[in-house]
């Protein structure tokens, strides 16, 4: 089964790169949206590990994305001129990994002290951390303060974004389906029972936060090299909510549903541009109606028992 999943991963990356090779023929606007979709898949699937599979509640995913994006962008901006053109992809990969690693460190810093908290307290603290991260970037001169970073090279192509998405889905799915990964589900279902069965809930929760933050950081790096500028306002509370809504719409812990939701919620607003005034009102109304009518997510069918507790 595992080798099958690997084959799928390689196939997905190959297709992404292949499509990317012909990207010059596509409409640039649609291509941009397609890249956004890839980035949002990474964000939603990585948050799904924390909120869905492990049953925690993080409202600060945009903060991790910001850490990754700013770190990656700063690294490229500093080293860009020193690197020969042929090595640019290597620098890009290095920047993404550094961004992911920095975000993972931030995830560890958030995770370790706060995971004694549960439910809405945890939600508020992660929200607070996300805001603090934003305030730090907004005041730090090194990172361009309120104006942000500009002139980041546009290295992100369709292939990069979707390869990243494929890799993220592959790693997280494999992890959750592995023997070790069953622990995440156990912590989600019943922390006390999991602890009594010899599973260390704190360790699993911190692991979920670190891995989730790592991929959010990668997504931030890809985003930075896609938009070519970064500003602190792009990583506010609203961005975190967007990602949370994708996870909820897809159904907590349902990877396929979450991917569909990420695609829908990225593409749909673009079609609603004509109703810009009402777009966000409809969006917030959608959240409320969804919670009243289908709290288990739109794409969850059959056994909803597992999600009853989520």
């Amino acid at each position, binding site marked *: 089964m595992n080798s099958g999943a690997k084959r799928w991963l390689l196939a997905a990356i190959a297709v992404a790169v292949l499509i990317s090779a012909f990207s010059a023929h596509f409409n640039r606007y649609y291509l941009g949206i397609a890249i956004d979709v890839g980035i949002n898949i990474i964000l939603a699937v990585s948050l799904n590990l924390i909120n869905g599979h492990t049953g925690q509640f993080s409202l600060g995913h945009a903060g991790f994305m910001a850490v990754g994006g700013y770190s990656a962008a700063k690294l490229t901006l500093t080293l860009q001129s020193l690197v020969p053109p042929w090595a640019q992809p290597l620098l890009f990969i290095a920047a993404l990994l550094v961004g992911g690693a920095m975000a993972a460190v931030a995830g560890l810093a958030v995770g370790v002290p706060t995971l004694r908290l549960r*439910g809405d307290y945890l*939600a*508020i603290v992660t929200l607070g951390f996300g805001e603090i991260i934003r305030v730090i970037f907004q005041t730090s001169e090194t990172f361009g303060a309120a104006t942000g970073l500009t002139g980041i090279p546009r290295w992100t192509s369709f292939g990069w974004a979707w390869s990243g998405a494929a890799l993220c889905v592959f790693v997280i799915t494999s992890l959750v389906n592995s023997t070790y990964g069953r622990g995440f589900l156990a912590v989600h279902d019943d922390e006390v029972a999991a602890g009594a069965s010899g599973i260390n809930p704190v360790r699993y929760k911190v692991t979920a936060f670190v891995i989730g933050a790592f991929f959010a950081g990668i997504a931030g790096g890809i985003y930075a090299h896609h938009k070519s500028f970064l500003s602190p306002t792009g990583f506010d509370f609203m961005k975190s909510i967007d990602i*949370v809504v994708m996870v909820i719409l897809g159904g907590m812990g349902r990877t396929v549903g979450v991917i569909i939701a990420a695609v829908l919620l990225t593409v749909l607003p673009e079609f609603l541009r004509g109703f810009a005034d009402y777009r966000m*009102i409809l969006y917030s109304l959608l*959240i409320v109606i969804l919670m*009243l009518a289908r709290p288990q997510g739109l794409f969850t069918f059959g056994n909803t028992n597992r999600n009853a*507790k989520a």
Partner: protein
Amino acid sequence: MTEFLQQLINGLALGAIYALIALGYTMVYGVLRFINFAHGDVFMLGAFAGYFLSPLVNRVLPAQSYAGGIIVLVLAMAICAALGMLIEILAYRPLRNRPKLTVLITAIGVSLFIEYTCQHRAVFGAAPRNFPDLIPANNWHLGGVVLSSNQVIVFVTTLLLLAALRFIVQRTKVGTAMRAVAFNEQAAALMGVNINSIISFTFGLGSALAAAGGILFAMNYASIDPLMGVQTGLKAFVAAVFGGIGNLPGAALGGVIMGVVETFAGGIPGLSNYRDGIAFAILIGVLIFRPAGLLGKVQTEKV
């Protein structure tokens, strides 16, 4: 020294407003055990209610009179109390027995809905507006310290409202029922307490206090906009957690401390940029070292 006193007065005025909002968070948490994210927006609606009521009241009473100011305040409180109850009935009541996170997300959705609806140009529009002077503007100089009539009103109103709240919660029948529901909802229901009406009342009471906070805030800072409740609401919530969520004196104390700390931090040159981050730093510190808050009781978890 004078500068210290001046900052202290400014901080206390801000803290009193935070306290009024924090009380609403803590009361709702007491009866329903969830964070009413839309509370900050009720605060904003209170300020806007005052903005639109003031010209109407001025047709009857002279502008900038204390009587007119009081009427505007009371009417705005009544309107927001009704709005708070409406939000509870429409959005939260159907979710009464659902998982907490479902309710939390609904609350975020309600909050966003209010914010975006109010930002629409057919409603309030996104641009900030100038809040009218409700009462005669005066500045009293005590030594080097300046005390404005608006600040005095903030202190007086807050103290009166806190006293009224204490009376309602401790001495009246409905207050007793509120405390009973907060203590044990099922037992209270078995004793004949109408849970739905008590929860409605709690929302109304909290929203009225938030509306008062909104008007006092607008009088002091003169500018209102549809997003004014976001940061203020979050900080007031932090104040409620700081004091021990579910604990009324704790929320008031937490609000005052939060206002003073924020004002002093804003006065320190290197720290002033981080003003908005300070509230959250305090919150995280509190939750890590004393999760029950300053005055809250530590609860052990039953398995």
